[in-house]
């Protein structure tokens, strides 16, 4: 357990020791701030006298895109850099389990993601101080966004474990995540039975419910399964050295 924390802390130090982290934080803050502002103005102009109803749906659907843009850039180095440097081989000679290595890196990325969401939470708090609103739908949307982001992280962590090239790592992660998004775009083309399965697998359709303030336990379970699945794949990817050797 303490080794998970040791790895997580080193990972965070490496992240915040590099200028990349601050650029990613700044881009996320700017884009999410802009969306928050423009969505708020849009709702005020177009919709109703109650500024908050319907706002979260707009804001969080936009935040979903920014998260999709930034998270693969956060996860790309997690294993790819260790493979490139060769330090991964050393980790395998320390008395630490593969699963502890994976969880340490995973938790570091999750922590960074939560830090990334902070400025936006401040905006929400600011709005609340001027115009108190029902917190339930906002919490639901945040839960959805965190589950979505952590799912992206699990996927990116796995892809990072398969390559030593960070660009490849980010691009393939984009590929997989966008595929899960586009799965249900062409709804007319699929027959009804296939569509139900596709809808069930679409990360973004699952996320949609949370932004409407609906927490369905099936959606939560889906995200947890998605995350576990990719963590399991990461574990398999690390274990592959036993029959494939150390690259």
């Amino acid at each position, binding site marked *: 357990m303490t080794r998970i924390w040791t790895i997580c802390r*080193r990972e965070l130090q490496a992240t915040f*020791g590099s200028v990349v982290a601050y650029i990613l934080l700044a881009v996320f803050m700017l884009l999410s701030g802009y969306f928050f502002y423009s969505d708020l103005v849009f709702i005020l102009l177009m919709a109703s006298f109650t500024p908050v109803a319907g706002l979260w749906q707009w804001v969080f659907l936009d935040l979903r895109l920014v998260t999709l843009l930034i998270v693969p850039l956060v996860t790309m180095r997690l294993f790819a850099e260790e493979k490139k440097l060769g330090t991964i081989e050393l980790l395998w000679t320390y008395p630490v389990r593969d699963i502890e290595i994976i969880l340490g890196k995973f938790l570091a990325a999750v922590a960074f993601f939560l830090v990334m969401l902070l400025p936006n939470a401040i905006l929400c708090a600011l709005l609340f101080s001027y115009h108190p609103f029902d917190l339930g739908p906002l919490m639901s949307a945040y839960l959805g966004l965190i589950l979505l982001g952590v799912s992206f992280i699990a996927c990116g962590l796995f892809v990072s474990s398969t390559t030593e090239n960070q660009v490849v790592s980010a691009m393939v992660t984009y590929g997989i995540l966008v595929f899960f998004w586009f799965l249900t775009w062409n709804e007319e083309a699929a027959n009804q039975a296939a569509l139900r399965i596709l809808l069930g697998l679409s990360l973004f359709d699952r996320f949609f419910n949370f932004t409407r303030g609906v927490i369905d336990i099936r959606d939560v379970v889906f995200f947890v399964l998605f995350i576990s699945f990719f963590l399991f794949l990461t574990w398999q990817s690390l274990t592959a050295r036993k029959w494939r050797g*150390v690259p």
Partner: protein
Amino acid sequence: MIAVDGVSKSFGSFVAIEDLSFEVAAGEIVGLLGPNGAGKTTMMRILAGVFPPSRGTVHVAGYDVVKDPLRTRAAVGYFPERVSAYLDMTVSSYLRYVAKMKGFSGSAANSQAVSAMGACGIEAVANRIIGSLSKGFRQRVGIAQALTGEPSVLILDEPTSGLDPEQVADMRDLIRGLGEKRTVILSTHILPEVESTCDRVIILHRGRIVAVDTTGNLSRRIQRAGRIFVEIDAPVEDARQHLSQFAGVSSVESKPRSGDSAASFIVMTEQDRDVRAALASSIVQRGWGLVELRSVAFSLEEIFLTLTQDQEGS
């Protein structure tokens, strides 16, 4: 301290090592010698716990590497062929991290890092970023990393590769010092390295053990015949005849001419006879010009060839 029994490792259809068995006693410094691709690194990775063997059993410090991987790893310090460290960390923070990974916490981790730096003579660069260090220092950081946590066994994969001669000498001194209290296995493809640091040698060739012997015995086995290169300014046939009739010479082989008039030969001498001085003066006495005379060391490949032939012959 280390017991390897019938170990094989294959990756897909590629067999990296096959049926290796050897033992290393506590406190020994043993060299794994072999050309590139002989299976040295694969064997060392198995000892260090990077991956398990495909067949056979390996015990390190009393633990089975397959059944008890974490305890084995705790007893082993590993220095990989590809020296690696987090380039963005300082030396001391990196070693503290390594100590924590090896199970030490707080002040214990700190004192581990300090003593490892002391043993490797890198206290002066403790607060430097690893990425800014020279190759020689990075190599020492790698050794310090292996030493952290006071493992009883050190596995060093080509610890002197890529260093300049002075750094190589320093590194060998360092390893000899470390070997006073620990069991050390080091790999190399350089023969003199083994001679200068190891008590015993295990020679690998194409994934198999070709010879296990003490360093002294091995030197005797492979150096039972000497080899001299001679270049003489004289008629080729006369010179050849003179050389082949010389006492202590077992065979003479002509080399293609390199200069305008000189004739060159490779002369093999009998065991334990240094005929160089006598040969030189005899050539001069004949009134010929002695252009060059030097002994030619056997390359590792040639040594493997003779050892493998020995094995097949016996």
